[in-house]
C-alpha cells in the first residue's frame, strides 16, 4: 500500500515532482562541480605558478663566487667549476621525477662579437631550447621554453643541434641586427634566427644552443648551472628540518614529500658533485599565493553549498505546501501523523536519490568543462565523493522538507478539505 501510494504520487503529479527534482539536480550539480573544482584547484594553480619559472637551481659543489652585476659577468673566463651535461638526464630518474616540469642548463661564456673593426666583448649564454633527451626508455624534451615561459622570441627558436643563435632585444638594437642576419662570433659567422625579449639580463646577451657555448669555451659537456622547475608542496615546519638530523620513518616521510628542500636534496644525489638550492623568491612565495587561492575557493564552495542547500529546501517546501489537501484527505481517512510524514519522507528520499545521481553526473561534466576551458586540463572527480554527495543531497532534502512536512501534518484536515488553506 505504501509503495503504491509513493508510486502513484510520482505518476500523477509529474509536474510537481519534476520541478522539485530539477531543483535538487541543479543544486547537487552545482555543489559537485564546486567541490571538484575546489579540491583540484591547488594542483591546477601550482601548475600555473610554474609560469614564474624555475624554483630550484643546481650549481657545482666547489663553485667559485659569481661576480655578476646586472647580468654582466665580470669574472675572468675559464674560471670556476662545471657540472657534466651527461649527468642531466638523471634528473628524470629521481623519486619525484614526475614533479619535474622541466630543467635548463646554462653556460655563460665571454665571446668577441663582430668583425675586426668594432669587435665587442659580449656574454653568450648556452642553453637548451626544447631539447629531446632520453633516460632509460623514457624520452622527453626540456629547455627554456618550458622553464622560462616569459621568454619571447621574434622570429624562430633555434634548433638545439644547430649553430644558430638568438640575440637579446637591447643588444640587437645596439648592434642594429635583426632576425635573419648573420653575426660574427669568435671569427665564425652565425645565423641570427630570432630576437629574444626577457626583461632580464638576457636582453643584453646572445643566447645559443648549449653545444655552441661549450665549443666557444673549449670544454665539451660543461654546464655552469641548471635551473629546475618542479611542482612542490608549500613549505612547513617539517620541511625546514635538516635531513641529517632525521631518523628512520621521519627521514622517509621528509624524503618522500615533494618539498622544495627534499627535491633539492634528491637533485644533489642525482647529479654528482653538485649543490642544489631553492630559489627562494619563487619557491617561498608559491605557498602563500597557493594557500590564499585555495582558501578563497574553499569559502566560495561553502557559499555554493549553502546556496544549493537553500534552493533544494525551498523547492521541497513549496512542493509539500501545495499538497495540504492530500494530507487532509489522508488524515480524514484515518492515517496517523507518522504514516503521512513517512510517505513524504519516502518521496523526498526517492527524489533526492534520483536528483543526486543525475546532479552528480552533471556536476562532474560541468567540472570537466570548467577545467578544460580555464586550465586546459581535466578536473577529475574522486569516485569517493559520490556517496558523500548523495548523502548530503538526502540530508539537505530531508532538512528542507522537515519544516514543511511538520506544518502540513499539523494542519487541521477539516480546513484543508473545506479549501480554507
Amino acid at each position, binding site marked *: 500500500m505504501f509503495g503504491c501510494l509513493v508510486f502513484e504520487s510520482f505518476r500523477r503529479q509529474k509536474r510537481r515532482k519534476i520541478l522539485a527534482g530539477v531543483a535538487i539536480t541543479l543544486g547537487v550539480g552545482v555543489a559537485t562541480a564546486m567541490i571538484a573544482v575546489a579540491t583540484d584547484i591547488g594542483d591546477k594553480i601550482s601548475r*600555473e605558478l610554474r609560469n614564474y619559472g624555475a624554483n630550484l637551481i643546481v650549481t657545482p659543489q666547489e663553485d667559485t663566487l659569481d*661576480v655578476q652585476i*646586472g647580468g654582466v659577468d665580470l669574472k675572468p673566463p675559464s674560471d670556476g667549476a662545471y657540472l657534466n651535461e651527461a649527468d642531466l638526464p638523471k634528473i628524470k630518474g629521481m623519486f619525484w621525477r614526475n614533479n619535474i616540469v622541466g630543467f635548463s642548463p646554462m653556460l655563460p661564456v665571454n665571446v668577441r662579437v663582430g668583425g675586426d673593426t668594432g669587435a665587442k666583448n659580449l656574454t653568450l649564454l648556452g642553453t637548451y631550447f626544447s631539447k629531446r633527451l632520453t633516460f632509460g626508455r623514457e624520452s622527453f624534451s626540456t629547455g627554456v621554453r618550458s622553464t622560462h615561459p*616569459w621568454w619571447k622570441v621574434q622570429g624562430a627558436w633555434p634548433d638545439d643541434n644547430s649553430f644558430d643563435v638568438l640575440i637579446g632585444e637591447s643588444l640587437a638594437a645596439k648592434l642594429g641586427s635583426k632576425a635573419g642576419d648573420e653575426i660574427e662570433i669568435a671569427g665564425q659567422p652565425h645565423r641570427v634566427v630570432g630576437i629574444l625579449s626577457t626583461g632580464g639580463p638576457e636582453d643584453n646577451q646572445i643566447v645559443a644552443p648549449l653545444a655552441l657555448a661549450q665549443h666557444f669555451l673549449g670544454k665539451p659537456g660543461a654546464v655552469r648551472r641548471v635551473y629546475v622547475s618542479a611542482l612542490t608542496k608549500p613549505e612547513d615546519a617539517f620541511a625546514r628540518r635538516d635531513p641529517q638530523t632525521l631518523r628512520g620513518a621521519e627521514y622517509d616521510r621528509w624524503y618522500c614529500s615533494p618539498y622544495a628542500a627534499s627535491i633539492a636534496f634528491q637533485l644533489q644525489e642525482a647529479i654528482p658533485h653538485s649543490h642544489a638550492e631553492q630559489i627562494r*623568491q619563487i619557491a617561498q612565495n608559491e605557498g602563500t599565493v597557493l594557500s590564499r587561492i585555495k582558501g578563497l575557493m574553499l*569559502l566560495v564552495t561553502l557559499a*555554493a553549498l549553502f546556496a544549493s542547500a537553500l534552493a533544494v529546501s525551498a523547492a521541497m517546501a513549496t512542493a509539500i505546501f501545495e499538497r495540504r489537501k492530500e494530507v487532509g484527505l489522508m488524515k480524514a481517512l484515518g492515517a496517523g501523523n507518522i504514516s503521512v510524514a513517512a510517505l513524504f519522507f519516502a518521496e523526498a528520499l526517492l527524489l533526492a536519490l534520483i536528483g543526486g545521481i543525475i546532479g552528480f553526473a552533471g556536476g562532474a561534466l560541468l567540472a570537466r568543462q570548467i577545467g578544460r*576551458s580555464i586550465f586546459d586540463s581535466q578536473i577529475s572527480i574522486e569516485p569517493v565523493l559520490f556517496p558523500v554527495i548523495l548523502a548530503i543531497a538526502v540530508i539537505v532534502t530531508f532538512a528542507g522538507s522537515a519544516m514543511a512536512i511538520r506544518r502540513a501534518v499539523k494542519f487541521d484536515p477539516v480546513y484543508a478539505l473545506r479549501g480554507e488553506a
Partner: protein
Amino acid sequence: MKSEVTNRRAGKPHTSMFLRMLMRAAVLRRGRAASALLAMVVAAAVATAMLNLYVDVQAKLRKEFRNYGANVVMVAKGDQALPADAIDKINAILAGHGLAVPFAYVVARTSNGQSIVVSGTNFEPVRKLDSWWSVTSWPANPQDALVGVRAAALVGPQGTPFDLSFQGRIMHINPTGILRTGADEDSRIYLSSQDFESWTGVKPSTIEIASSGSSEEVSSLIRQLSQAVPVVEVHPIRQIMEGEAHVLGKTRATLAAATGLIIATAALCVLSTLIGWVFDRRRDFAIMKALGASEGLISGFFAAEAAALGAVGAIVGFGIGIGVAAWIGRVNFHAPVVPRFNVLPVVFVGSIAVALVSAVLPIFLLRRVQPAMILRGE
C-alpha cells in the same frame, strides 16, 4: 459627509486601494511573505558577496603577488650614476602605491685578492621588498654587513670580521647576518648605503620598484618614470609580471565560473519560492477577477508586489552580502574586502527582474483558468 468620501475617492481612485492591498497582503500572510522575502534576501546577499569578491579579488591577490618583489627595474644608462633626486621623484610618482629601493654595486677585492660584488642599499625597505630573503639577523649598526651564504664561505666562514679593498681604500666589515636566497644575492655582500658611499663614493645605479597596480597601471608608471628621470632605462620584470598575469587570470576565471553557478542557484531558489507563493494565492487572484478586476490590473498588482519584495530583498541582502564578503576577506586575506557600490545596481535590477519573472510566470498560467474553478477549490 458622504460626498466628502466620494470626492476623496474620486481624487485618487486606485492608488490608495492598490497600496492598501499590497500592505494588507504582506501583513496578513506574514509567514509566507517572510519566507519569500528571506529567500530574496539570501539570494541577493550571496550574489552581492560573490560579485564583490570577484571585483575585489584582483586587488587582494595583487597584494599577495607583491611578495614576489620588484616588478619594475630602473637602471642608469651606461656607467653613469642615477641623478641624486631620482628616488624622491619616483616616490612622488608612486605616491604610496609601491616601494622603491636603490642599489649601488662595485666589485671589491678581499685580502687574498678574490673579486667580490658589494652592494649598498637601505635595509629597511629591502626587508619589505624582498620578503623571501632568509637572513639570520639584520644589520643595525654602522659597518655591519649582510653576507651572502656563498660569499661567507669565502671571506669569513666563522662570522669573523674581515677587510675589503676598493680602489686602494680599505673597509673593515663586521658580518652580522648570513643571507640565503638561492640566486645572485648569495655571492654578494650588502652594506648600508651610508657606509657604502663613504667607503666607495659610488652612487646607486639601480632602483628596484614594486608597484601594486594592474598591468596597465604598471605600464603607465613606466612611461611616467622614464619621462621624469630621462637618463635611465626603465623596464618591467617580465618574469614577475607574466607569472602574476597568468595566475591571476586563471583564478579570476575560476571565480567567475563559481560566481555564475552560485548566482544561478540563488536565482533558482528565489524562483521556486516565489512561484510557490503566487500559486498559493490563486484564490486572491480568482476573487479579484470575480469582482471585476481587469487582467492587467491583477498582473500589475502581483508584479508590484514582487518588485517591492525584490527591492527590499536586494537592499537588505546587499548589506548582508557586503558583510559576508568583508568576513571572507578578513579570514582569507587578513584584510576586509572593500564594499563595491557599483555592484548594488546590478544586484538591485537582477533581484527585481528575477522576482518579476517568478510572479508573472504563474499569473500567465492562471489566466487561462476560470476563477470559478479556483474558488471551488479545483
